[in-house]
Structures are given as C-alpha cells and as structure tokens.
C-alpha cells in the first residue's frame, strides 16, 4: 500500500478495486485447483441447496447448488477464468488494432487519416452487438464471436485517442531529429511514437474492461455468447432465471459476481486515469 500511495491518492474505492481485481485475477489463474467441485458435475441428490447463511444451508456448498445440483461456488470460480480470458482477448485485439490504426492515421495524415477516422466514426455509433447476434445465428454461440464483436467496437475508441496524441507528438523536436538522421517512418512509429502513447493505451484499456465484461455477460445471457455448459456468469443467470422464486440464490450469485467484477474494474480504471492520465477524462 505504501508504494501505491506514492503513485496516487489511495482511497476506499481504489483499495476495494485493487483488492477485488487481485482476487479475480488469482482466481482466474488458479481456478481449477481452488474449485472444491467439478463445475459441471451434476448431483440430483444435492439439488437447489441454499447458501450457508440461509436456513438449511451448510458449508458443504457455501453458495448453494443449482437446479441440477452443481456447486455454484465452483462454477463461479471456473467462470471467472472464462470471463476474464474472453474479455482480455477482446480488449487486446481491440487495443492492438486501434492503436496501430491510430498511429498510422496520426503519423501519415492525409487520405489514410481521413479513411481511418471515418471508419472509426461509423464504428462508434454502430450497435455492433447486433452483429454478434447474427454471428451466433450463422455459426452458433462461440466465444470467438464475442471477441470479434467487442473488438469491432473497441478499436475505434483507441484509434481516436491515439491519433490525437500522435498529432501533437509528431511535431516534437526528437521526432524531427530522428527523421533528419534517416529513420524510416516505421522506425519512428515503433521507437518514438509507440512508447509515448503506451501509457494512454493502458489507462484507456483499463477503462474498457468493465464494459467488455458486461457486454460478454449480456451476450451469454441472450445465448449469443459462450455456449453451455461452460459456467459463463451471464449464462448462469439465464439458466437460473426461472428458479428465482423458489431458489433466489441461483440467479443472484452469478449476477453479484458480474456486478462486483465490473464495479472493481470500473473503479480501478477511474483511479488509473485520475492518477496517470487525467486528460482522458474527456473521453
């Protein structure tokens, strides 16, 4: 915490965010070994067990079981990995493509810039999520569809911000010097521009994680995302939907997991932005 407080103002929100994110990432990495049960092992004798603090609950199934007797805690733990992996993949594809196009648009300008920014304008207001629905109908629900659809929205956010940064960076003396000393455009972009926008890219990426997780969950809920029986959080809410009256914990637990994860990543993103890149506030 001491090292962190040197970085920025640490308050209860950032402490909560960092704690939850560290927990989620470790659960994501080591989930298979932590989960007390096989997440897909059904047990008819243990159907709809309530969580430990409710009447009739026990430590055998701390968060209760679902309608086919699968342990909800184990499913949430393994689901963390799926959610984080898919969200990260979408984020990385969107960030890499968007940063590359933003660098190119900002550095070269002219027609290239016009075409790229026009495409970004189109992408930003485009409900590309509808495209995910179409992909799901054509090829069935697959995690790749989520990565493609979310990346199709995200790239434009990165491209815009990176381009704006490059526009001011390319006028700096050290870029002019590099050009005079014979560096090619590729070298200037790689060695002089990219390192200077990376900071912004990382902060911007952290601000998009919550959005990515929510979108993934919504698509999985609609049946256009990660296919069952994989314990994706959104799909777990969908499966538990009809049991809310007799067993409230079945849809409530995965929903709470989404809420806490998105909340933590959003707060972390806000904190990183305020600390490292306050000008991103306008984005």
């Amino acid at each position: 915490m001491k090292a962190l407080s040197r970085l920025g103002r640490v308050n209860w929100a950032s402490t909560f965010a960092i704690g939850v994110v560290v927990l989620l990432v470790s659960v994501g990495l080591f989930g298979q070994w932590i989960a007390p049960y096989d997440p897909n092992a059904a047990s008819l004798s243990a159907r709809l067990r309530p969580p430990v603090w409710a009447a009739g609950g026990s430590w055998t199934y701390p968060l209760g079981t679902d309608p086919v007797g699968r342990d909800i805690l184990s499913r949430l733990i393994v689901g963390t990995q799926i959610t984080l992996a898919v969200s990260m993949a979408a984020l990385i594809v969107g960030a890499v493509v968007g940063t590359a196009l933003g660098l190119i648009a900002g550095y070269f300008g002219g027609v290239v810039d016009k075409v790229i920014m026009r495409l970004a304008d189109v992408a930003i207001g485009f409900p590309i999520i509808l495209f995910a629905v179409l992909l799901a109908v054509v090829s069935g629900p697959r995690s790749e569809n989520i990565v493609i659809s979310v990346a199709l929205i995200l790239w434009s956010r990165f491209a815009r911000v990176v381009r704006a940064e490059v526009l001011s960076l390319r006028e700096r003396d050290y870029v002019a010097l590099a050009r005079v000393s014979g560096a090619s455009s590729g070298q200037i972009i790689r060695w002089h521009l990219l390192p200077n926008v990376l900071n912004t890219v990382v902060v911007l990426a952290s601000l998009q994680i919550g959005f990515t997780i929510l979108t993934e969950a919504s698509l999985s809920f609609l049946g256009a995302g990660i296919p069952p029986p994989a314990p994706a959080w959104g799909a777990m809410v969908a499966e538990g939907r009809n049991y809310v009256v007799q067993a409230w914990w079945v849809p409530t637990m995965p929903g709470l997991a989404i809420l806490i994860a998105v909340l933590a990543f959003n707060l972390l993103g806000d904190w990183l932005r305020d600390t490292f890149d306050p000008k991103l506030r306008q984005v």
Partner: protein
Amino acid sequence: MIGLIADRLLQAALALLLLSMAVFLLTRATGSPLDLLLGQNATQEDYARLEKELGLDKPLAVQYGIYLVRIVQGDLGRSARSGDSVSALILDRAPASAYLALVATLIAFVGGVPLGVLAAVTRGRIWDTAITAATVVCQAAPSFWLGILLIDLFAVRLNILPAGEFEDWRSIVLPALTLGLFGLGGVVRLVRTSMLEVLDSEFVKLARAKGVAERDVVMRHALRNAMLSVVTYIGIYFSILVTLNAVVEVVFNWPGIGRMMFDAIVFRDFPLAQGMVLFAASVTIVVNLFVDIAYSFLDPRIRRQ
C-alpha cells in the same frame, strides 16, 4: 453549416452501405445462402424459386445490387420458421420496443440531469458521495440480472406490479426502470463531470465576480454548457440501448423486437435475424445522424463556422 450537414449525411449513408455489405457477405461467406435463408423445412421448389429470385448464378457484385434494391423496397425476405414477411413482423413488434425505449430514456434523462446537477453543486459532500456511489453501482449491475431481481421483489413477493407482458400502463414500470437505470447512471456521471468543468471555468468565475446569484450561475451558465455533452451522449446511449433493450425484453417477455431477436437466435432463423439487425442498426445510424446535426445547431462555436 450546410457543408457539415452534407458531410454527416454522407457518413450515415456510408455506414448504412457498410452495414448492408457486411450482412450480405456474412450470408455468402458461410456456405450456400440458400441453406441459411430457407431453414430446414424447405422443399426442392423453394430452393429453385429462391435461387432465381436472388440471382445466385450472377456475379457477386450484381447479386449485391439485387440485394440492395430489395432492401430499399422494404423486402427483407421471409422468416425461415413462420414464413411470414420479415418487414411485417418488424413493423408489428417495433411499437412495443419503441414505447419501452422511450419511457426508459425519459427516466434516464429526466432523473439523471437533476441528480447530476445536485451532485456537482454539493461536490465532496454527502449528497455527492451518495449519488456518485449509487450511479457507479447502477452502471456495473447487469440489466438482465437487475430485471430478474425486480420481478422477484415487486411482482412475486410484494405483488404490486406485473412482471412484464403487455397489459396496462403498470406493465411498463419494471422493464422501463430496469432499462432506464443504466442510462441514468451514465447521464448523472456525465452531467456531474461537465458541470464541474464549467463551474471551474473563467466565464463562471467572472459571472460570480459580477455578483450573479449562485442559482443563475448554475442554471444559466453551467447547466446550459453541460447539456451540450449530454446531447453527444445520446448517440452512444442509443447504441447501448439497442443491446440492453433486447436483454430486458427477454427478461420481461416484452413483445418487442429484442424478444424476437432472441427467438431468432434460439431457432437459428437467419432471414429474421438479418432483417432485424439491418432495421435496428439503421435506426441507430439515423439517430446518430440527428444527434450530430442537433449538436451543431446547439453549439454556437460550430454553428458560426
């Protein structure tokens, strides 16, 4: 000004063209479009008829041309499951979706703007903290989950509101609230941030120094400027709304387009999904066009260019 509007119109046309091209290529890239368009119960005659209708023997560019002309004429094909005209199905369901979206938008903006102003003027005090905390949670809660909890609480346990379906005015309350809360969070945060920015600017300091009453400073100077960023948010809000609408309609069994989209996924009804995607995306693009034009009218810095 006219140049700007022409530019935006061109951009919207380009977006629509790209959209139709993407959907068209998707039907072609995944094997025979006939399988996708006809579904499983099609006869040999259906295949022969559609092949001729779509001109599948002609070059791809010509096929795309035929496809575009049909869309412009309002012919989106027939549902593979029911055989009904897709455009008729959409027109039948669109009012329910529009009604839900409209009430949710009202909740988001009518509730969001005053809360955002309140948070900004009480910066750092208890009201601000409470409002900010509530909106952060609103924005992190998945709508489909919130909807389920609201049904459980108000429709089942308390039994004071219906759980969706389309009966009387009370049916709209829960779905619109579920949908509106996410937008509300966004509006509050946006209004708060832009208000704080404006309240900190030179012209507001001048107004205060002149002795303008604090109430007038907030309402006349700060809020009017903050509203500009709210207008730009509508475009992004609307594309989020289209997704969330689908989710909320499924949860509340609302007879709109989103509910139909879900059925199209479940039954792999490609013509229906394709038609709805084209329709919903076109509406979004047109809304964004109007937002851009409205913005350029509202912002004198752009208007006078």
